[in-house]
Every structure is written in structure tokens, then in C-alpha cells.
């Protein structure tokens, strides 16, 4: 999996590409924990090029959302492929986390 990260004002935009599973989720968790530790309070994760997610990936997303909430920050998700969106829905995470259709919409909500 490839993770790219860019600042957007005070926020951070992460773009994911490939597969987010038990193998690759620790790398993403490290990057997100680091961002929150360094003071980032608003995070957008762009899922456009993510082809696959398992519960290991969902856990990292949920942990990050909780960590940001504790700091009065927020996590926004966007641009999911149908299959990835379906996994969020089956897990019931679509009601816990804001999932936006486009990156522009997500950035507007920051």
C-alpha cells in the first residue's frame, strides 16, 4: 500500500492506494498517530485509489477518529470505491464516521 500525506492549511490530507489489511495497516496507523501527536487536529483520508479494506484497516480508522475526537478534532473520509464503502456499511461504520463523495466536499467541511 502507498500512503501520501500533504498539509492543507492546519489539516492533513492522506491518500491511500492499494490494499489496507493486517499487513499494511500498522504503517498507516503509525503515520496517523504521528500526525495527531504532532498536533494535527483535522484529517481527511482520500480512499479513491484504495481497492481493499479489512477489519484491521477499519480499526485504524476508528482509533484515529476516537483520538481526534478526544482532542476536539475531526476525521473526514472521502471518495470510496463501491466495494470499500460496502465494507464500511456492513461494519456499521458509515453511521459513526462522515463519508463524503468528493475530496472538495471533505475539505470544505474542515
Amino acid at each position, binding site marked *: 500500500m502507498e500512503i501520501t500525506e500533504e498539509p492543507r492549511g492546519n489539516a492533513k490530507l492522506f491518500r491511500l492506494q492499494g490494499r489496507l489489511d*493486517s*499487513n499494511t495497516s500498522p504503517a498507516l496507523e503509525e503515520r496517523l498517530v504521528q500526525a495527531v501527536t504532532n498536533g494535527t487536529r483535522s484529517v481527511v483520508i482520500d480512499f479513491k485509489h484504495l481497492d481493499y479494506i*479489512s477489519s484491521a484497516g477499519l480499526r485504524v480508522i476508528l482509533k484515529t477518529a476516537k483520538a481526534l475526537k478526544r482532542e476536539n478534532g475531526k476525521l473526514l473520509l472521502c471518495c470510496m470505491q463501491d466495494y470499500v464503502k460496502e465494507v464500511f456499511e456492513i*461494519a456499521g461504520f458509515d453511521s459513526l464516521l462522515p463519508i463524503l463523495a468528493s475530496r472538495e466536499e471533505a475539505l470544505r467541511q474542515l
Partner: protein
Amino acid sequence: MKAVGRHFFELKNDIRELAALSRHLETLADRAGIPGRTMLEVNLALDELFTNILSYGFPQGGEHRIRFLLDAGPEMLTIVVEDDGVPFDPVSCAAATTPPCGLEERRVGGLGLHLVRKLVDDMSYRRTAGRNVLTLRKRIDPQEPTAREAG
């Protein structure tokens, strides 16, 4: 194209084998003409089961092999997953309180099993000769494009 094909493979109890799991599934999907979406769902179900077996199945460590047998008929994919880890019945897991399905774990480890239950049409478990044998059945939707057609 009719979905017909059998595929057998083994994975070591090493999380890096997840990459091999998806390669094996792609091979079968291509050969048997199984829709890409169906195969992604099967991949996720087997990923969760495999990850679970690795997390809880071998407290003593050592090298083990997890066996997968996939049998694709025209409308139904039957999958048998076998391991020689500690007895664990994911079918009755919902009623249990010990990891990986206890209350505290439900969000964490239990989430994977929740996904498995939602992704397959039928699941049955037996313990035979010191092995966990889990049989899954997944309907193949002929309306979906096959992995090959979808590119």
C-alpha cells in the same frame, strides 16, 4: 461463462501470506469466471478468518499450515478452511464471551467475524481429528461482471 473450478492451497501461519491468499483467489476467479465483486467479498471473509486463526489459534507458536479448498459450481462457491490450532467455532462465537468474540473484543477482533457472517451465505463448523474445519458457502451472482471482464 459457467463458473466451474476447484482450487486447493495452503498458507503458512505468517501474516505476509495474505498477499498469497489474494493471488490464489485471483487465479481461481480467472479460471472459473467468478465475478470480481464476489471474489473481493470472498477475499475479505478468508482474510478475516486467516487473520483470526493467526491471532488466536497457535498460542504455542511453531509453524503451521492453514488449508483452503475452494469449489466453484455454476451458482455456488463452497470453501473449506482447515487449521490445527486450538478449537475455535466462529459460528457460535456470537454467544461466547472469550476472545476473539467477548464484549470488549467485539469492536476489535469480533468485527472481523461480523464481516465474515455478513459476506457469506452459509457457515458451518466441525472439529475433526484435532482440526478446525469451517465450511462456507457463497452464492455466485451471474449478473456481476467476471474478474476478467471487469479487467
